[in-house]
């Protein structure tokens, strides 16, 4: 799955490179127009492209598989008889899913930086605020973006973990998690439901532009982290409540 994620920035870079006319400013996904001037933007553009569907898809697969996958293999009963401890197993599984979130976003950013640097010129980056930063600083900013997206996905991972404790069919848990992430984004795009928007786990997913200003504005990062922490608390508690009393019959 990490390989598939790495293919996204490569796809973006190669497509831009091969097209005869470079994307006009403002055309296509954000930051795509900057790619031809500076290869470092490939990773960021790829991240933007992957956030709505591809990243949630991979997270849904990993988080949905956590408990349900063990249950369907039958290894869950042997882990519990081990005894792994039900709470410990949940925590380990969640940490694993969170580590995958980090690995997934880092893969996109790193693959993007590498392919960008090899196909396009690399130089100082102009930030959204108009300031210019060096290559080293821009790499740091890229990592910061990866961190932001990782945090964004933690809430979804917690939802996936909870759904995974409900079933013994991993595919069902994966699909339900992915569907929820799409539904949340659809709801977020309906202005009639604006009262609901701040509560949707996907609401801040694309608000990382603040991290590309000078000085960095941490407002959206903090709001996002708080929201995701809320989702982790609620769905972590639900997963705990469900899993600790569950009869393991698979």
């Amino acid at each position: 799955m990490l390989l598939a994620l790495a293919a996204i920035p490569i796809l973006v870079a190669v497509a831009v490179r091969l097209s005869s006319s470079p994307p006009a400013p403002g055309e296509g996904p954000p930051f795509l127009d900057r790619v031809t001037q500076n290869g470092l933007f490939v990773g960021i553009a790829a991240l933007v492209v992957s956030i709505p569907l591809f990243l949630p898809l991979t997270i849904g697969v990993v988080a949905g598989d956590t408990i349900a996958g063990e249950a369907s293999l039958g290894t869950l009963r042997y882990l519990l008889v081990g005894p792994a401890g039900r709470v410990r197993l949940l925590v380990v599984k969640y940490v694993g899913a969170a580590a995958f979130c980090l690995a997934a976003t880092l893969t996109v950013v790193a693959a993007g930086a590498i392919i960008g640097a090899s196909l396009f010129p690399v130089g100082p980056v102009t930030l959204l605020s108009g300031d210019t930063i060096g290559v080293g600083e821009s790499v740091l900013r890229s990592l910061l973006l990866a961190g932001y997206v990782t945090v964004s996905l933690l809430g979804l991972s917690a939802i996936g973990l909870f759904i995974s404790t409900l079933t013994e069919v991993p595919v069902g848990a994966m699909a339900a998690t992915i569907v929820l992430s799409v539904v949340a984004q659809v709801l977020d795009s309906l202005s009639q439901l604006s009262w609901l928007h701040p509560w949707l786990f996907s609401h801040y997913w694309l608000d990382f532009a603040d991290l590309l200003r000078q000085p960095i504005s941490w407002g959206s990062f903090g709001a996002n982290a708080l929201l995701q922490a809320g989702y982790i608390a609620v769905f972590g508690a639900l997963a705990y409540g469900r899993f600790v009393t569950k009869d393991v019959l698979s």
Partner: protein
Amino acid sequence: MTSGTASAELAIELRGLTKRFGHQAAVDDIDLAVPTGSVFGFLGPNGSGKTTTIRVMLGLAAATAGQIRVLGREMPRHLADVLPRVGALVEGPAFYPFLSGAANLHRLDTADRRASSTTRDARVAQALERVGLTHAAGKKVHAYSLGMKQRLGIANALLSPRELLVLDEPTNGLDPQGTREVRSLVRSLAAGGTTVFVSSHLLAEVEQMCTHAAVMSAGSLVAQGTLDELRRVGLAHVRVRTPDVDAARRVLRHLGLVPEQSVQAEGQGNEPSDPLVSAPLTDHPPKSEVIVEALVAGGVRVRGFAVEQASLEDRFVALTGEGFDIAQ
């Protein structure tokens, strides 16, 4: 230890254990006592509640009612203290198919927080050797045969020294050699002081390796005790092979026995077979030589005579019903 010595000598003690799924009671108010050091056969037809009992006993499922003590401690409250001392094979082996046999054992061993990681390699190798899988240790489990997976499942139960082994259908899918190996493995473990709790529907298996047994039927426990106690409940039979059926029945009746419907014995080779006349031996039966003498004196051509003890199979069938009409 709050309770007396009686329960300290029991490896497993279930009191009034009930497990309901919806309205259906999979296990209905059973009392079970497994003495420490015994090889305990847990018998019952398919679907009689054996595996459910084991799941509840090991804390995988919650009991609807009743008390459970394993190794003298209450379950599931002391689960974390009890389970490291218990090795289990529950409802068939289960492994990660994309990992090798040894890697699977490693992963399952890490589930036990008390299992030392420094001795892990040695313990995995030893467990694999005990079940004869050393040569296949590096092979992926999806390439294993059914019997190899079963052996790996038993190896998993043997990763640490255990005081109690719970083996659910341990010889499932094994060939006759494998079955013999499992039997000798169980015997050697029992000789080392481990209590072994084996569930099975194979009577011959239980008869050959167990000291005690219990019989489940439709969620209830219908008998338990030592193997001899269980057999004793059934009646011994006298069987006479003879062409003179009517005469034989008459003589047996004179001796105070009640002959059953005679059956045709299976012929041997080309010889025509003789009918079998049998009668249960009730209290204070006449001695065998007295019966034979009376038969011969009565002009019965006795071609075969035997006194047969009730087998566990007779007892099992008497307790759980015959044929495929398994109680629901």
